[in-house]
């Protein structure tokens, strides 16, 4: 694997974000809002909130493999082992009085002044935030979005738009300030630019060889998630895009000797991100694109029409859609990235991000004539993931695709 030089800039960008969050919590430089990843961040930024993302917090625990210490604590509270392991890691860490943000001086996640959710992704986020609302006596507000949408209709957009508008007054009250239109426009512009640039970065992987993989993307999408609405996000993606374009021009491969190209649907297995990335590289297989990374590339935000465009973007998101548009989306991606196969991660504790459960892999194979593989695993709970089984499944899939190509398989010859 070839490491991206932009990783240093990424670290600096994320570091600055976590430091500002710590400042807000510890030195009260700004009110703190917790927000779901697809929540109305632009509004929060425009009101001057420092924004913490519990999903990002949980992913950090997944990647650091500390989640396994925290999960049992939440399960003991009565949360099922079958529900979102982001939720159970995060609440477990809270109960343990720990946080991966310790390096920034935070013993726990930054204390919130308000919790803001959007159920366009799942119901779990609401339950998750309401737990904290009860625990910390903090207001919880949110958007109750429809899910499993076929085509996004004007009435869906109307409904979400009205809900977004109705968040303004309570959030202004918590922030102690009035919403300034110019600030909202600026946050919208920053979000839109970041989303477009991020989308363009991901699109470079349509080149052969691909300059980045899903595994790189899972790390480099950090700013697109946590710095939405801030100018730091587009700034970072300009740096990354320049490097990726350079790579494409010089034919620098993220996976040296790229032979096979795959698409990944579903969540990352955070605790095995590096192991999987190394394994695929060993098989000269580039996982060039994913639904997950592309989910933060919603580029249609319109500063001139903030509420409606945020509503539309949040409804159009892959995760909020029904099987048919999801299938069409994957078909488009398969074609655009010109992949040899699709891996579906069946994430045990997140049915919302697992597209295996209603026959999608079979339909994709049938419709596109492209082989698919279902991998059992989980986003944060490594007890649901078997290293050996994953390896055999992936290696077997690679063998199958290689043989189907009639390529002489050098794999295995030592």
């Amino acid at each position: 694997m070839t490491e991206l030089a932009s990783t240093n800039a990424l670290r600096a960008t994320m570091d600055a974000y976590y430091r500002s969050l710590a400042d807000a919590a510890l030195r009260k430089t700004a009110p703190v809002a917790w927000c779901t990843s697809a929540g109305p961040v632009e509004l929060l930024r425009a009101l001057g909130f420092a924004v913490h993302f519990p999903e990002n917090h949980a992913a950090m625990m997944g990647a650091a493999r500390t989640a396994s210490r925290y999960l049992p604590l939440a399960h003991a509270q009565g949360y099922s082992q079958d529900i979102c392991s982001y939720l159970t890691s995060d609440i477990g860490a809270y109960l343990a009085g720990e946080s991966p943000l310790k390096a920034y001086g935070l013993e726990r996640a930054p204390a919130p002044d308000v919790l803001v959710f959007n159920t366009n992704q799942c119901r779990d986020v609401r339950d998750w935030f309401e737990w904290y609302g009860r625990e910390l006596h903090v207001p919880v507000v949110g958007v109750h979005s429809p899910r499993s949408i076929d085509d996004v209709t004007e009435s869906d957009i109307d409904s979400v738009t009205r809900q977004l508008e109705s968040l303004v007054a309570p959030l202004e009250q918590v922030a102690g300030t009035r919403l300034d239109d110019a600030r909202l426009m600026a946050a919208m512009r920053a979000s839109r630019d970041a989303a477009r640039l991020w989308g363009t970065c991901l699109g470079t992987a349509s080149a052969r060889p691909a300059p980045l993989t899903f595994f790189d993307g899972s790390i480099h999408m950090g700013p697109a998630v946590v710095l939405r609405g801030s100018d730091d996000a587009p700034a970072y993606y300009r740096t990354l895009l320049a490097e990726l374009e350079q790579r494409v021009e010089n034919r620098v491969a993220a996976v040296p000797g790229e032979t096979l190209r795959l698409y990944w649907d579903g969540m990352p297995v955070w605790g095995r991100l590096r192991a999987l990335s190394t394994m695929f590289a060993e098989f000269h297989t580039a996982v060039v694109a994913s639904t997950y990374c592309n989910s933060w590339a919603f580029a249609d935000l319109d500063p001139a029409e903030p509420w409606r465009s945020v509503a539309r973007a949040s409804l159009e998101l892959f995760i909020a859609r029904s099987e048919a548009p999801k299938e069409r989306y994957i078909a488009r991606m398969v074609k655009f990235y010109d992949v040899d196969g699709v891996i579906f991660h069946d994430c045990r504790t997140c049915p919302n991000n697992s597209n295996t459960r209603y026959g999608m892999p079979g339909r994709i194979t049938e419709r596109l004539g492209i082989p698919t593989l279902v991998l059992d695993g989980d986003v944060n709970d490594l007890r649901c993931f078997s290293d050996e089984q994953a390896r055999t499944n992936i290696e077997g899939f690679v063998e199958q695709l290689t043989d189907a190509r009639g390529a002489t398989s050098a794999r295995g010859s030592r």
Partner: protein
Amino acid sequence: MKFYAGVDSGSWTTKAAVIDEEGHVLGTAVTRSGADLAAAAERAYATALANSGRTGDDIEAVWSTGFGRNTIPFADGSRTELDCHGRGVAYYLKGPLVVIDVGGQDAKVIRLDAAGHRLSHRMNRKCAAGTGSFLDEISLRLGIDIGELNALGRGATESLELSSFCTVFAGTELLTLIRSGKRPADLAMAAYRSLVKRIVSMDVLEGRIAATGGVVAYHPIVVELIGAACRGEVVVPPHPQEIGAFGAALAALAACEEHDTSDTAELVQP
């Protein structure tokens, strides 16, 4: 004549096979894997060699497969068991085929096209249901040796069902049935039915079906039940337990042949 070998390092047993250049099996061996997979592989390989009347010096290449395929120091190459089981079966049976392999700790369904190329595979989830471990647990509960389970099942007269796939739950369910006076033979058969129910739900099983693996080799009832569930003929290829090791030996042979042709191709370049 050239000779090749394959070692299938499974989680429960290690199998080895020695073949000639036409793919004829000259000798096989099965041994417990235990904790030292490399030692088990050595043992199985040595026994297969002895059974084939060959020595290690006669062997062109040894390839490995199975759970421990990457831990065998003397292997010249490796392929997954998904590949080797398919390869082994395709040597004997014309495709298209569905290969069902039931091993000690996993179950697989592999689809092969007419040319014997793999179209897809499914493996059981991280769970003992549908695998040999399930039968071991059941034998333990019934207080019999696993080797007696098939014969016991043959004596079944009443059709009982275990409703749970879960090995632990099925175990407790079994205890309840024992307490209610059910006959061990009927319970053994219920366990087989439960195992097969799990397997046949892994994929659509139509067309020609081949069954392999240790469970298939020692429990013919499983083959019959799969046949009944799919309403079709289920073929068991020769040496079903060692089919993976045989497939690995075929992979060794194929790799050497490929190598030979490319060498020759290089030589004849103008």
